[in-house]
């Protein structure tokens, strides 16, 4: 177990390092970052001055090392636009994104898992077909469009929910649905497939032979085994969701990290964009690492091995 965790941890660190190199090199994709900072009115002298000021005249490796070592101490540079430290800028905005992510994945799990179980209990029944249809339709629904429809119906026509902002929990209802529904099809399908697989297994027959009730067979014996892969999928989806928050936050004007990313890209604020890519990747890496550990803990076969 410990060896497994250490191995995973090493892999996670290596992935993080590679991602940091990629997000660092993004800065140089545009050619000359100095002219990007200077803007259209800058003269050649201005740009040269900026180049020296920001240290763009040094070798790339040195610049990367500088950036990485300060990133490790929590210094992610300064935003070109806000003229503030990027780290504190992101920290301020991250809370909303995290709330949204947790709500989104909870919504997805609470709807998709029961649906998947119900579908697996009666394959090819009405509920199974409905679940399958919902998952196919859900995958095809553009999330920005879905968000706009919700706003038109529930905020404008019915007036039940506020269309944008983040000042109360009610404001999070629509963003949660829009962010969460995208993860539903995958979770639903995996739950259904897992349950179908487990329900046809020998140990379920053993449980029935003991006289266990259907409810006990389903929830104690079957779901416990079928849920293991769903846990790791949920962690992965959570990672994707934080990255996907950029669309949702821009529709509902939630000023979280995703919204910051959108603004910063539009403003060519590269240090902020770089840092956000790194932060979102790190979240994904942390979530998948935690899910690996959780998985190993949930599955007795891995716990011992």
């Amino acid at each position, binding site marked *: 177990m410990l060896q497994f965790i250490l191995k995973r941890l090493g892999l996670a660190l290596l992935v993080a390092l590679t991602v940091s190199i990629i997000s660092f090199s993004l800065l140089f994709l545009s050619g000359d970052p100095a002219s990007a900072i200077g803007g259209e009115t800058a003269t050649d002298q201005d740009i040269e001055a900026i180049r020296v000021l920001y240290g763009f005249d040094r070798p790339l490796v040195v610049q990367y090392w500088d950036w990485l070592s300060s990133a490790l101490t929590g210094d992610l540079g300064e935003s070109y636009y806000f003229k503030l430290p990027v780290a504190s800028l992101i920290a301020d905005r991250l809370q909303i994104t995290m709330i949204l992510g947790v709500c989104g994945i909870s919504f997805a799990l609470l709807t998709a898992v029961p649906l998947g179980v119900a579908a697996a209990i009666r394959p090819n029944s009405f509920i199974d077909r409905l679940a399958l249809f919902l998952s196919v339709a859900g995958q095809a629904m553009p999330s920005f469009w879905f968000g706009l429809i919700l706003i038109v119906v529930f905020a404008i026509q019915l007036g039940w929910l506020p269309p944008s902002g983040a000042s109360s929990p009610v404001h999070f209802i629509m963003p949660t649905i829009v962010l969460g529904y995208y993860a539903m099809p995958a979770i639903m399908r995996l739950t259904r497939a897992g349950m179908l697989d487990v329900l046809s*297994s*020998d*140990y379920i*027959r*053993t*449980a*029935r*032979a*003991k*006289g*266990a*009730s*259907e409810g006990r067979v389903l929830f104690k*014996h079957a779901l*416990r*085994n079928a849920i293991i892969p769903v846990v790791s999928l949920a962690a992965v989806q959570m990672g994707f969701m934080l990255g996907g928050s950029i669309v949702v936050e821009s529709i509902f004007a939630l000023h979280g990290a995703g919204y910051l990313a959108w603004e910063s890209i539009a403003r060519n604020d590269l240090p902020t964009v770089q840092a956000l890519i790194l932060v979102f990747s790190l979240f994904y890496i942390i979530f998948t690492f935690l899910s690996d550990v959780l998985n190993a803990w*949930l*599955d*007795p*076969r891995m716990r*011992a091995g």
Partner: protein
Amino acid sequence: MGDTLLTVRGLTINIPVGGGTLHAVRGIDFDVDRGETLCIVGESGSGKSLTSLALMGLLGGRIDRRATEMQFDGIDLTRANARTMRALRGDRMSMIFQEPMTSLNPAYTIGDQLTEALLLHRDVGREAARARAVELLEKVGITAAASRLGQYPHQLSGGLRQRVMIAMALMCEPELIIADEPTTALDVTIQAQILRLLVDLGREMNMAMILITHDLGVVARVADKVAVMYAGELVETGSASEVFNAPMHPYTRGLLRCIPQPGKTERGARLGTIPGIVPSLVGGVTGCPFRTRCDQVVDACRQAIPRRNPGSGNHEFRCVHETGHRMAEESPA
């Protein structure tokens, strides 16, 4: 004869398959008395396992089970609802399955799984249930029983797991235990041990047992009664001594030719085989199902097959020939 525990008459199992119905079991009859061991013998696909699952009410929803009569200690199983069946299963009748490697839930400890049936059916506390589990684990020959309770199935070998399965089936001291090829998946060396254990425990607790197997050597050693199954029908039933000493049906006869017998089979002699093709049971099945492999086949084999009794006790067989195999013995082959 003791008092009858289980009576089965006209048990029929139909399975819908793509483009027809598989008539897997067709109208079989048998009885099991208290404390008695019935062995159902046959090739794979003959419907033995389906029969045992049908008794437990564990066939899948798509499978059609019907019977003119099916009684367990006065309870009509053909009309029993799900609740009645649940109350019987694991308590008064329990089952041991073929596959010890996959029949235990990987997510729960041995202790949890052993005590489950007892906690479900009896009004006992956790501690009492665990004590009973330890007692039974010791009885099935597992050492350090108390420490095994906290282990998970994957930490045990196949032989140990099957011992656990046996202990699990015995937790509530059932009156009937159904063992579906309990040793097939195990190493040959421990097959005999496990079987011996099962039979001894059955005698000790005065349990009736239905042992399903294709191993005639096993049958000879443990059976009180034998039922020979071929392609969904019981072709011959009777006490073990009757069936072994005076096999009547050509199929039984063929099966017995396939086992070497110390003293009787000559060294280097070829063991018998039964040539031919097992028939497809999809669509209507009429006449004798064994006629595609039988060396005694006549036109009458396509008609209804009479049930015959050679005159001694409950010994019965189904064949158009009044004397069953004996014609084969007389014909020069």
